[in-house]
């Protein structure tokens, strides 16, 4: 391969040095005794033992998974009708509507989450509406809370669900639906027995993709949550930048990494559709 060598060697050297080696180092840092930020040469499993034995940290990990699960669920529930409409509509606005539903990908997750703060804070839009309608006497506290984090993340990750489900719908032969309808099946029955089963891999891919991104998201839990709603990502940030305990930060990072990989492995087992949806920038 002499002709191809320089093309491959430079980018690979870069990725090995700046991605693979640091990630490998993270694993070793997680099992070394650290003095503050500097790992020493003595191996230890205390970092993992401390995280997994403390009810506080176990709670954080559990909350992260609950958040991820419900974010995935909400994303596919909201994305499915939208994706179905976008694929099947004959509106001349089709292209514009597709662009509009994917455009949020161009906004930083901070921009997308800020809107939820404006809606949910004590002087926010939702409280104004409830007060105006006379449904409540005084403003409710929606923030900080885990449900707010779930809604905010589902909103931020919706385009991934739309992309995954759209590609499953695009890959499906529309003649199958017409055949079911012409043989007398009702539209509802056609959907349940033909369309949904055929696009289920796309739904699973969207669910797992949203789940995996959600558990590693920092900004939304930081903005819509608080000290009582820490997730793995906000905890890692505290370990690394506030408490300066890089050993615990690395161990939590390894747990997060293993969780994301486990999820994507499940996606691989379910049919390998998950990678398709990742063609879009996060």
């Amino acid at each position, binding site marked *: *391969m002499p*002709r191809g060598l320089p*093309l*491959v060697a*430079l*980018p690979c050297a*870069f*990725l090995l040095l*700046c*991605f693979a*080696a*640091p*990630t490998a180092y993270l694993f070793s840092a997680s099992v070394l005794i650290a003095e503050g930020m500097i790992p020493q040469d003595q191996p230890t499993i205390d970092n993992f033992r401390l995280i997994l034995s403390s009810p506080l940290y176990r709670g954080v990990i559990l909350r992260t998974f609950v958040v991820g699960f419900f974010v995935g669920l909400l994303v596919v529930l*909201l994305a499915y009708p*939208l994706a*179905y*409409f976008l694929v099947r509509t004959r509106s001349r606005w089709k292209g514009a509507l*597709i662009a509009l*539903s*994917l455009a*949020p*990908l*161009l*906004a*930083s*997750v*901070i*921009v997308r989450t*800020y*809107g939820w703060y*404006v*809606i949910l*804070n004590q002087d*926010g839009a939702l409280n*104004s509406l409830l007060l105006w309608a006379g449904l409540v006497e005084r403003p409710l506290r929606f923030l900080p809370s885990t449900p707010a984090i779930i809604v905010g993340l589902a*909103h931020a990750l919706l385009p991934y669900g739309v992309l995954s489900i*759209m*590609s499953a719908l*695009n*890959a499906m032969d529309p003649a199958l*639906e017409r055949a079911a*309808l012409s043989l007398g099946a009702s*539209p509802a029955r*056609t959907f349940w027995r033909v369309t949904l089963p055929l696009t289920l891999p796309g739904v699973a891919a969207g669910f797992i993709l949203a789940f995996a991104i959600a558990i*590693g998201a*920092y*900004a939304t839990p*930081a*903005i819509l949550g608080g000290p009582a709603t820490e997730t793995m990502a906000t905890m890692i*940030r505290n370990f*690394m930048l506030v408490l300066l305990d*890089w050993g615990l930060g*690395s161990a939590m*990072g*390894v747990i997060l990494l293993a969780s*994301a990989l486990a999820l*994507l492995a499940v996606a691989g087992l379910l049919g390998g559709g998950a990678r*398709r949806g990742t*063609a879009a*920038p996060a």
Partner: protein
Amino acid sequence: MRSGGADGPWIALRAVVAAVFAFALGPILITAAVSFNGSARSVFPPEGFSLRWWGEAFSARWWEPMGFSLRLAALTALVSAAIGAPLAFALVRRRFRGKALVEALVVGPLVLPTLVTGIALLQFLHVLGLGALVGFWGLLIGHVVISLPFCVRTVAVSLRAMPPQLEAAAASLGAPPHVVLRRVTFPVISGGVFAGTAFAFVHSFTDVNLSLFLASPGERPVTVAILAFLEFGFAPTLAAVSMLSLVIPLVLIALLERFVPIGDFLYADPGRRR
């Protein structure tokens, strides 16, 4: 489904879709409205009308991180395209041992949580004694790592879509390899290169999870500056800054879309093209 005479479900679907669009776009529109708020609180509906938050968004305090993000994203996009396009070319057109390994290495940063890549790089720089790189150069390294997969993928998609006979025809007509590359291959795949560059720019410009750890107090992108400002509360200034940081990539993509159908790389079922 419309052809099935099933208008009722279709109308119901349109209502649901309208609601999902309201959910997806509402928060962004509300943020836009708050940025023109007359009072200093993030209230909705806005109290009065004022441009002072936009004035603040354009002040040096915010222009500095905004300019930093723009420089960082532009350089990230150029470097990613410069090393990503040749790599994609090699992956699609050449056979070599360890190819699967190289492919895994390229998608790695896309698959692993960006936040973990960030803390790994932060520690690695410190261990190598390169802690001084934290700031612009550390961010550039990290952003190229996480943006490279987009460039490689878009270029690979356009290379796979190109009939290989084109290059063979040019070569058989006597064009030397570098002329084939410049006059045939590059014009055909330029769409993929531009799309990859644009995605890399947007990905860098909007990143939070990696930048959080590699920014230094004086050298931080606008996303990190917004997060730091949040600790002091939510002023409508942030709404204006947020809108500004949304408009910049939007305008960039819209401009580029006029020349290159970038959107195709986003949603036109890349899985089927390959």
